[in-house]
């Protein structure tokens, strides 16, 4: 039974867009095999989230993605589902972006009860770029924070389910 779903969104070969993947990979190393936590790396196709069994099953969902707000690279912003979602950029030709996917989930009544979105500010997104050092460092910090939080959430969920 999955209590916590952590999704790293991004692309490993597009500079700071790797932020979500870096967090997911680091967290997987730290947690090892953990029955109650599912960690997913997602590149294109955020709509795939809605077909993951854990999307509906998990008590807590954490999404980690690179963001661009103009803040210094490596800045971390945490958004709860209680905050209004930013509007999607426009309709895509090929997939729904993350925000559109979340809005679709809301329209279908399938937003997770407890959703946290962690944004890591990126600066460069070219194909083949390496992630900025500041983003790599931020991904480490986020993974460590999530490690502690995810363990606590998983434990609380197990207790409440029991």
């Amino acid at each position, binding site marked *: 039974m999955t209590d916590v779903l952590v999704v790293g969104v991004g*692309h490993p070969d597009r500079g700071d867009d790797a932020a979500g993947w870096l967090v997911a990979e680091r967290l997987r190393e730290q947690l090892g095999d953990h029955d109650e936590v599912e960690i997913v790396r997602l590149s*294109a196709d955020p709509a795939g989230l809605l*077909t993951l069994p854990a999307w509906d099953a998990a008590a807590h969902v954490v999404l980690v993605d690179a963001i661009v707000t103009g803040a210094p690279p490596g800045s971390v912003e945490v958004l709860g589902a209680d905050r209004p979602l930013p509007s999607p950029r*426009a*309709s895509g030709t090929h*997939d729904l972006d993350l925000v*559109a996917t979340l809005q*679709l989930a809301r*329209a279908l009544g399938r937003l997770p009860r407890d959703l946290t979105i962690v944004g890591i500010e990126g600066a460069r997104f070219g194909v083949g770029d390496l992630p900025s050092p500041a983003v790599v460092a931020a991904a480490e910090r986020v993974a460590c924070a999530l490690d502690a939080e995810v363990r606590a959430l998983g434990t609380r969920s197990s207790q409440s389910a029991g």
Partner: protein
Amino acid sequence: MTHSHERDISVEALARVEGEGAMRVKIRDDHVEHVALEIYEPPRFFEALLVGRAYTEPPDLTARICGICPVAYQLSAINAIEDACGVEPPPMIRLLRRLLYCGEWIESHVLHVFLLHAPDFLGYQSAIEMAADHHALVEQGLRLRKLGNTLLEVIGGRAIHPINVRVGGFHRAPRVATLQALRPELEWARDAAIATVRAVAGFDFPDLEQHHVYVALRPDVGWGPDVAPGYPLETGRVVASDGLDIAVQEWPRWFREEHVPHSTALHGRMVTGATYAVGPQARFALNADRLHAPAADVAAEVGLAAPERNPFRSILVRAVETVEAIDEALRLIDAYEEPDAPAVEVPPVDGVGHGATEAPRGILYHRYAISADGLVAAATIVPPTAQNQPAMEADLAGFVQRHLDLDDEALRWRSEQAIRNYDPCISCSTHFLDLQIDRG
């Protein structure tokens, strides 16, 4: 619009980060003077990345090009590497590859038909608005899509970026019982997909007739010795509506990619200079006789006949192909027997190999030169969207010319829809797309 109208229209059609791609339409004196699709192509980067890597690595590395069609990249790469090494895997491995590909088609086609393209036809800006009025339709799409995910998980080991696929076969073969357990959901899905074809057939399709040369794969053998060749998925000869019929190894003699002044991306051309189109309409035009009864019958029922030349009706072809993919998955599951070994050895040889498969949006061609010590010496990847760029430009020019009376907003929306007809690949060819219509 009888007078010269000079307007600039800029549409941000797709943007996570802006400015890496654009569609520009230039209109002068009620005449579409120029249409240019400018897109950015990560495959060029991956081609360079692959040189010097082990010959076993391209399937996993190139799968990262596209999150929607990783199986296409994996299997085109594997076909090319096995071709270079002169190895042909046994029937059950070929069956599993075909079944895995069915999963990818179901997932990709359903996403496109239900969540990306249907809103265009039903008059919604996006699936989000559509979901409010068509809750059951969207949930049905998501359930169908989940089935595609499940197939990818069961055979590929993971729904996103399958990890169980390797040169020579698989790391682990699924159990017969595991696949049989999917039958009930697949049977539901076949009925749901047939109902989807009927629903989509009722959409209002804009008029447009295009005479592209269609190019698709067409298998000349089935996955096993006594199996008739089917609809093209994981292998086949390359055929075209102008009569071309070649082995994949002859691809470089008949097709080329050329630089065009307005774009850093390469455009696909036949060596004759003709533009061509790949994808559902091309496959259907050249392989309609290969559809099995459920798909063929519902196509006939809704009046879909090959060749279908209106690009806006590609959504209907995708819906029919979804029926075929589900129906084929059922057949493959019933024929499956666990192989003695999940993979065969593929020792490296000094050579060149070619591979092509039918990605959901059209032919994906790979070519590798491998050295005797097993390193990749050269790699070429030709993604479907690069091949479709000239056809997309032609469609847009034709469509805009016929609908100059529309105001900018309507024209912009319909133009986006015309681009969506090709389900262009966000990651492999059009990561970011910005549409501009310039009326002077």
